[in-house]
């Protein structure tokens, strides 16, 4: 019967998958990258207006040409893939997948070490599983780049990294091994009873002490070279930014105060109460990676709103969207879905798409490579059979570094 059919299909598909995988390896051996022409009824380049009947040429892993079908001829020998809507590969500006897995069992949850409250030396790259199913899952919806790392559940839980969602291993997937150092303020950073920090004031005292130590160390003739000192000296010199998760308005203000005192570069993360302190954020010049649009209200996030992204954008604050951290079901959100809700709540389609493409790339500092469909950039492309934001539209394919990495219809 039909459900049997589904099952058979899925078994059949894995056989096909294995075959395709072997074939892909074979092709890789022959030619490192394919030459592909992606045709779309609508091509959102995110570098100018969307193109009707557009073509994106892919060669050697990069975008070779972008334009309308009348401007761009498809050379002989290029594989042509057609889609209703074509966008740049999506960027998830903050997640924990790869470190945390879909099973949600102790052995696949590597985004938090409970040993200490301040551990900036923990590298995300040492915990990243490039073959985690959740990475495959978001890739099939068009997500091609993720900023991932330690989860926002301790004062300084560790570092973050930026990776493509394709790669046989962490080295192949990674774009930026150390992107930022995560800092968490508020309830989520409160340590278990009997350990510090137990209050918000203690959190700030501990952070300030750590940063003063880093300043003093940096001023030494022979600075200490232990792991923590090394990364903290990069922070204090402004080489590595702090990703400060702060939801309540008072925590956001604390983050801005800290940045000012130590002349730090920070990215605000979560920021549920951002609309309450929008002028202060705007004045700081720091960007915001806003909470998932559909995040659950409650606790420090009681005031979160579907309209926050639109409000920040209107104020001229650089803003991107994240899938965030989930402790249970669903184990990850999908930024495509979150941006869709933002598009239905005050943002234009174009501005909502920017939250998960070019604006995210700019905030993460990777816009030279990804985030838009422009000549010379990485050939990271997402394809859909309609408006990507509609619930009923399906993702039809994903290309990363010029490789077709998904042709599953989702």
């Amino acid at each position, binding site marked *: *019967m*039909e*459900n*049997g059919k*589904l*099952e058979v299909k899925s078994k059949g598909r894995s056989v096909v998958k294995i075959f395709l995988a072997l074939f892909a390896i074979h092709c890789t051996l022959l030619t490192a990258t394919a030459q592909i022409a992606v045709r779309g009824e609508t091509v959102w380049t995110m570098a100018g207006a969307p193109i009707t009947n557009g073509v994106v040429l892919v060669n050697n892993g990069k975008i070779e040409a972008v334009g309308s079908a009348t401007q761009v001829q498809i050379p002989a020998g290029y594989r042509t893939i057609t889609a209703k809507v074509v966008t740049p590969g999506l960027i998830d500006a903050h997640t924990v997948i790869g470190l945390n*897995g*879909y*099973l*949600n*069992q102790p052995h696949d949850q590597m985004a938090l070490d409970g040993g200490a409250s301040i551990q900036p030396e923990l590298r995300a790259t040492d915990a990243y599983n490039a073959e985690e*199913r*959740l990475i495959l*899952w*978001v890739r099939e919806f068009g997500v091609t780049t993720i900023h991932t790392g330690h989860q926002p559940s301790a004062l300084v839980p560790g570092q973050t990294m930026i990776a493509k969602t394709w790669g046989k291993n962490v080295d192949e997937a990674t774009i930026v091994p150390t992107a930022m150092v995560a800092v968490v303020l508020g309830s989520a950073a409160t340590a278990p009873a009997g350990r510090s920090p137990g209050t918000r004031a203690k959190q700030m005292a501990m952070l300030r002490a750590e940063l003063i130590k880093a300043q003093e160390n940096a001023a030494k003739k022979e600075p200490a070279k232990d792991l923590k000192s090394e990364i903290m000296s990069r922070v204090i010199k402004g080489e590595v930014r702090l990703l400060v998760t702060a939801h309540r308005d008072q925590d956001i203000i604390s983050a801005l105060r800290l940045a000012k005192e130590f002349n730090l570069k920070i990215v605000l993360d979560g920021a549920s*109460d951002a*609309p*309450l302190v929008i002028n202060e954020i705007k004045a700081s010049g720091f960007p915001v990676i806003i909470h998932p649009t*559909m995040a*659950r*209200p*409650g606790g420090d996030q*009681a*005031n*979160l*709103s*579907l*309209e926050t992204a639109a409000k920040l954008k209107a104020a001229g604050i650089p803003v991107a969207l994240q899938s965030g951290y*989930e402790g*249970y*079901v*669903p*184990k*990850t*959100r*999908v930024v495509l*879905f979150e941006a*869709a*809700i933002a*598009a*239905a*709540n005050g943002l234009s389609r174009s501005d909502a798409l920017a939250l998960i493409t070019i604006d995210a790339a700019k905030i993460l500092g990777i816009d030279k490579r990804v985030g838009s469909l422009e000549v010379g950039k990485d050939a990271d492309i997402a394809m859909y059979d309609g408006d990507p*934001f*509609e*619930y*009923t*539209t*399906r993702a039809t394919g994903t290309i990363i570094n010029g490789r077709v990495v998904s042709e599953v219809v*989702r």
Partner: protein
Amino acid sequence: MNRTTFILAGLLAIATTVATAQERPTAFTNARIITISGATIERGTLVIHNGKIVSVGNAATASIPSGAVMIDATGKTIMPGLVDTHSHVGGAAGADGTSPIQPDIRILDSINARSASLQRAQAGGITTVNVMPGSGHLDSGQTLYLKLRDGAVKIDDLLIYDSSGKYLGGIKFANGTNAIRAGGGAFPGTRAKSAALVREQFIKAQEYRDKIAKAAGDATKLPPRDLAMEALVEVLERRRVVHFHTHRHDDIMTALRLAKEFNFRIVLQHVSEAWKVADEIAKANAPSSIILIDSPGGKLESVDIDFRNGLALERAGALVGFHTDDGITDSRWFLRSAGLAVRAGMSREKALYGMTMAGAIMLDLDKRVGSLDAGKDADLIILSGDPLSVYTHILETWVEGKKVFDRSNPKDHLIAVGGKGAGDDDGGHHDIHCFDGDGGNE
């Protein structure tokens, strides 16, 4: 205003509201009307009066009672209020940690009727909801079917009664991993033990039922009252539906096996691996209430959850409804579940049926809610467009002829989108401001 005057004013306000509702019918005109029970009417008129639907029909031929309040719904879509077959709105907790099977527990005794989560459900177009205790037990207690009426002061204001005056609800069972506790004392350590513990209780309930029958009304021969047994006897007599939390295909089969052995009525809840056993579910004639989750996993039982569950069950011919499991998914975007099911191949018709009528059937409320038909409760939602589009907003929610959510009202808009104050529990602000000015502050 002194306290007495104030109370009098409040009572007068209630009386006025009730009187108004009874006096004038309301006619929604020029709307696209998705009736669920019949064909969609492209330009239709819906008339409601005294909390009931009076008529649904084509705008050209509809008769509108004189004196009706006219609401022009041109460009808008009206459909039945949504039925959420499994939710945890109201912040309730059911059974405690002492034992795995607690049929005597009533969620009735635990819900906060003023919880903001109930208002969010109204914003999501939910008019009828099955509020359940959790799934950390084999049986965590009795569930409650609620109408999300406005201005509830206490849980009694939201109950649904049958013709005999009994309020309606089911009972929650669960299998799989949630109730399994390593070294958990009275709690099971394995799936087989879980089933054995449940069977043991039902056999006890059969004996209890037989003793009562044998007593034939003789009070001296009746067994002592046992609240847990009383609830299970209702299950055995098919008067109380079992809402069975079950994810994995083998657990689904176990739930069906138990339902068959003890001849109880079952609604399968979650059914994450329904796509693997859809034919078996259909053959057992078991309704399924499914949930659409943004990614697989998060727990071992749901690693194979699939957006295609709705499609597979529809193809197999099984009855499919949906639920939020709020807070797992938020009631405000309940309609999204149907959208995602259609994305994975389910028909639009069955998906919308699943959001409304299928749920009504699962809660034994299909005579009263689930479709827009004359004589049914006037539970409806007004939408800005296609119910399956992300860009569509729920503009209004009506329960029994009364508007309980209005997106154009700033307070309701805040509940719908969130923001400062949106999470505050309702102090009864909607109609009666009993505490405004109280205590001599005016």
